């Protein structure tokens, strides 16, 4: 008898449209969030926050209630939703420009308050939707449309290490940085995303997962080359791992 081992998660709409470029890790990240919502059985009790950037089209695929936040303000919007409806599961889906540049204030302070929400951050070292400009996480030497000779620290500073920074905040309960460059990495990422939701569900504080992701279009690489970059120079600067885990400690 044939046994179903994988299916599109229910938290992805039946008439979904993945609006990302070919080979972009965004799609995989979205799918993992949806799988976790399915597994936790919270789809019908969830409110997602869509941010500005490539993640703005969340309503094309997420099969949950969604409210759109202005650029960078997702964690403030999430705060408003969660404080008004504390029994709801609330998550943000943001890029690194949204969460760590224009929205770093909202991010840090929502986490300082220990808001019981989950933040998923796609770190692809560039502003994807606007065409590949340098962002807060652009690596030293990285060529972008605004660092055409490579990012120079003396001119535009250093890449912001988001997870290392957020783990220091007392209100975060779970902080992890993951990659999606192999089936094993994807399975691990899902485990971490689940923990970040459990941090919220158990009322321990903010759950946060930074996903090192590819942007093949703006990096001008094949999806395969882009994954090699994640494994290589990106992982050297942004070391993957679990930075804080009050969820396991609480068990």
């Amino acid at each position, binding site marked *: 008898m044939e046994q179903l081992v994988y299916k599109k998660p229910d938290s992805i709409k039946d008439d979904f449209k993945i609006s990302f470029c070919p080979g972009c890790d965004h799609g995989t990240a979205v799918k993992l969030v949806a799988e976790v919502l399915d597994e936790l059985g919270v789809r019908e009790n*969830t*409110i997602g926050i869509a941010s500005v950037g490539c993640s703005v089209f969340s*309503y094309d695929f997420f099969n949950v209630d969604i409210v759109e*936040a202005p650029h960078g303000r997702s964690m403030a*919007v999430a705060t*408003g939703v969660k404080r008004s409806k504390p029994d*709801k599961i609330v998550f943000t889906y943001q890029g690194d420009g949204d969460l760590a540049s224009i929205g770093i204030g909202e991010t840090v302070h929502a986490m300082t308050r220990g808001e019981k929400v989950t933040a998923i951050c796609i770190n692809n070292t560039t502003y994807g939707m606007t065409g590949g400009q340098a962002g807060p996480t652009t690596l030293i030497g990285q060529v972008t449309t605004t660092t055409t000779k490579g990012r120079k620290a003396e001119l535009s500073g250093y890449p912001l290490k988001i997870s290392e920074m957020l783990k220091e905040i007392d209100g975060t309960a779970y902080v992890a940085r993951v990659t999606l460059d192999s089936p094993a990495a994807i399975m691990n990422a899902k485990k971490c995303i689940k923990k970040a939701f459990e941090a919220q569900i158990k009322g321990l504080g903010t759950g946060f997962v930074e996903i090192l992701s590819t942007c093949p279009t703006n990096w001008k690489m094949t999806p395969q080359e882009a994954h090699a970059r994640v494994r290589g120079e990106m992982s050297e600067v942004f070391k993957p791992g679990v930075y804080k885990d009050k969820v396991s400690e609480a068990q």
Partner: protein
Amino acid sequence: MKREKQLLKGNYAIAQAAIEAGCQSYFGYPITPQSEIGEYMSEKMPELNRAYVAAESEVAAINMVLGAGSTGVKAMTSSSSCAVALMQEGLSFIAGDEIPCVLVSVMRGGPGLGYIYPSQGDYYQATKGGGNGDYKIVTYAPSSVQECVDLTYKCFYVSQKYRTPVCLLADGMIGQTMEPAVINEYPYEEINQSEWALDGAKNRKPRFIASIEREQESLRKRVVKIFEKYNKILENENIFEKYETEGAKLVITAFGSIARIAKAAVKKARKNGLKVGLFRPIMVNPFPEKIVAEIAQKVDGILDIELNCGQMLQDIKASIASCATTIPVKFYGRPAGVMMTVEEIYKQIENVYKEIVEKKYGTACI
């Protein structure tokens, strides 16, 4: 239950009325002259098991309001001038999202940091908006502590009924004035928000609240729909005060705090035989153009008085132009600083009256 009159400060009246109106979520950041509102809410909201968050900035506060409002609860923030400026992006989104919420704006004198003196320098900010796109912030301007209560109720009701951000536009004088007022019961019906608000997609399709519209035609339709709402609000929710406008030759236009001083000056003018009236728009946005036009057709001149360099003045002029009347419109204003006295306004009335009315009819008409 009969409610007692209390000696109340404007800011506390607003806060108490918000609670009475059923405000479920308050988010704010301190700024004088409205900080008492946040202080009061920080104490009372948790006691009532409602949400209070000391936001890290006004940018965050208005976006918390956006999130709270998207769940259908009565949500509110309060702020002032340069800090309301920080909220403009959020307000544009909220208007585009069609999310109900209340903003209390207690004006300082500006521009920039300015100072905390009574001023009406943010009439443009409230009614013309600093945010992007085609939208309006429905705005009510109280001129007494009692109106702080009544209009806070009105703001919540209109915001909930029409799913739109509504602003209570006060100033340092109104916010800080203490006078007797009654916190009446919230007089409006509760509006059911369950047809659109977010509460988890249980046994229904997921909902999406956003201002983004990728199709040209749907973006156009959305803006048209929002503007139809403003027309309905003007038709159904407009409030104003007309004082002695019948038979008046000169009408004073003023709103908010200065209108009450202007009213005292008008009373004095009437006592002295001058045919002067007062028109005070209480809803200043959308602007009651037709009513001003009707008045303009019956008088010989208008004297607009504001605590700024002439902001509502432009709406008055546009209203008069709309009915092709060419009566003179005079302006007496003073930007942030010293409040005008009754005597001072009376002198202006007298001067303008001489210039316009007596010139036309001779002194006999006095």
